[in-house]
């Protein structure tokens, strides 16, 4: 099974994750993006791929500002 095929569920609510708009903060910059999260408690899921890909790029861009 690849990491992408995993069916993650919220550990607290046992809910299947759905895409939800989540607000991110970094160095005074705020923006929102759709990421998987628990539809009940809102716990946000960030995959390794996202963290080390797009998020890392964005972090560097914002640090440079």
């Amino acid at each position, binding site marked *: 099974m690849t990491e992408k095929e995993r*069916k993650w*569920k919220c*550990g607290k609510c046992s809910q299947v994750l759905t895409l939800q708009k989540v607000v991110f*903060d*970094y160095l*005074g910059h705020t923006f929102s993006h759709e990421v998987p999260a628990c539809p009940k408690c809102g716990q946000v899921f960030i995959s390794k791929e996202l*963290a080390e890909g797009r998020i890392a790029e964005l972090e560097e861009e914002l640090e*440079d500002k």
Partner: protein
Amino acid sequence: MIKLEDATAYTERCIHGEPASCSYACPFHLDVRSFMERAAAGKWARAYKQLREATVFPFIVSVLCDQPCRKRCQRTLLGDEAIAMRDVEAACVRYVKNRKPQSYAIPPKQERIAVVGAGVAGLSCALNLAQKKFNVTVFEKADTWGGALRDHDRFAEFADEFELQFSAVKVDFRYNTGITSLEELAEYDAVYVATGEGGESFGLLESWNPELFTTAENKVFLGGMLTGATLMESIAQGILVSKIIEGYLQTGRAALTPDMQYDKNYCGRYLDHEDAVSVPLVVASSPDGYTEEEAKQEAARCLLCDCDKCMAACEMLKRFKKTPKMIAVEVFADTQVNPPYSTRSLTRQAYSCNICGYCKSICPEDVDIGSLLQLSRRVRMNAGVHPAALHDFWLREMDFATAGGSYTAAPRGKNNCEYAFFPGCQLGAANPEYVLKAYAYLDEKYDCGIMLTCCGAPAYWAGDDKRMEDNLQNIREGWEKLGKPVLVFACATCESLFKQFLPEIERISLYELLARDDSIVPARPFAAAAVFDPCNARGEEGMQQGVRKLAEKAGIAVEELKEKNRCCGYGGHIRVANPSLYDEIAHNRVRASEKPYVVYCVNCREVFSLKDKEAVHVLDMVFGTGSSDRLPTLQEKRENSLEVKKKLMSGIEGTEFTPEKHDWDDLVLLIDEETQKEMEQKLISAGDLKEAIWLAETTGKKFFDESDGMCLASMVKPVITYWVQYKEAGPKTYQIHNAYYHRIRIREEE
């Protein structure tokens, strides 16, 4: 907040981009460097334009200049002949396709200027003023122009030059018109008296100001061979006077603007040209002068003297391609931004500097870019606009070393001591035996206590003044408690920070003490090796010589590296801010010598070990501790530090040290080699993963996959969000599958 001058003060002595020594010697202050660059490329039109603008009469200068520049040509430092300046100029005049002077579209001016004398001084002034569209009248008692040049063999050619250069301007020449009294010129707004050697001075020579060319007579200026100037100086003076007169007509005051001021002393400012190759003078194949190709070759001999030592040597400066002065302006500008309307331009560079001081050590003017970028970090930290995640890992390590890992004690049964060992936080973390064996030795030989703590380097490099000062205060108090002993250092970074911030504390290097002891015969891991001096050992003779003596005692043939005290890459904690630069620097240091290294900084040793460079810590040679063992993990480093403290405490006080206990300490993590390597590279410690798992398992706040029981949990600490993917492998035992982090914060639900 800082002012612009606070930043530019760091680089005001930088001479990059300033004229070369030859230009300071040139009466016209010609930018010889760029002239030669253009000539070497055969760009005759651009070279000629430059020569024409600087000298007004390029042909005459190319024939008659006495070339004071050649006496200041830095090629002579290599034993070569100076660049044949005049011959290259002559070639430029010969090979340029179009010498027709340009006419400038400037509105005509009302002011009228009288020039007395049509020699080179008067003509150069008249030509320049006429180009600016002033109304210029030249009075000459003879029947033609040229002054002293009229007797020259080549006067016909010089007269052609005057004809050519005056062809695009309007000047009223009045020949056969001697001026006997200045009253005749009362209607003019300014007068330039340039009547040649022994010419009429209207009694103004005594009141003549050689800097501004003014006289007691308001509006009357005086210069040229009348004042004893040479022919070339006379042309140059005419040009300068034209500018002073222009300013005088605009403001009513004669003054020199900064671009007119040249400090002749700088013509002795030479650079070292250690890598330059000797090239002989190009000899013209014809008596008429250089062919075009020969002239280009001769111009190419110019060393284009400009100081770029720091920018050529430092990987960081090379990568960001900014001059020191530009960096200073940006350090200030970055404090003025108002995001998102304006953004910073220096962040990555400011946090990519090793602050190793190498730039300063090779700068002829001692300009210190590291301190400048350190200022940027400090200002941003104080203003709370720093990228905290770039230094967070090391600041947390510092917190650990100054709290749980710290320990200060006098020797057994005593309250104070003559010496105290300050090993620094990383030595024991790398290998507890380094500290334990060194202390055992010092305890036996000297009245020596111990100070286990961090010197504050992480705070210093992060620009955290407050944390730095608090830590210094704690160190000071501990030192006073021990009766102000001499501190024995094993880490060059600690020693350099003490030198800077705690100068009242007397210091000595552990290596110097060990080297003094004839009973010590260090092991000989290599027949020959290079000593790799850490950046912070620069100027620390005791430390540097101590290590060399120990290496020699071991029988190692010691090689000296060409570049001294370069940073291994670790300095300034740039690894998170700029991983690829860190890697490049480490790569270059490893290749500074083919021989293995003897090092005396555990950070250097770690960096080299990760690059598979054979390197041994000098303490391994002295105490027989194993340097070839695998590097400890981040978690093991902390455990090593605690072990050092535990053993020292037990030995000195006979008490058992119990480190602070956490609920997650008992968890067992199973981490395969590849994941561990990835964690080390990302600076994720097993301790943090244990805490994240413990939190997830006790609160249920995690994600899970029913198909195989895989879990994923995250923890924010304090600015970084760590994620761990794991599976339960037994009671309180977890197999780690992945560990990663991000710096962006997910905004919690309101």
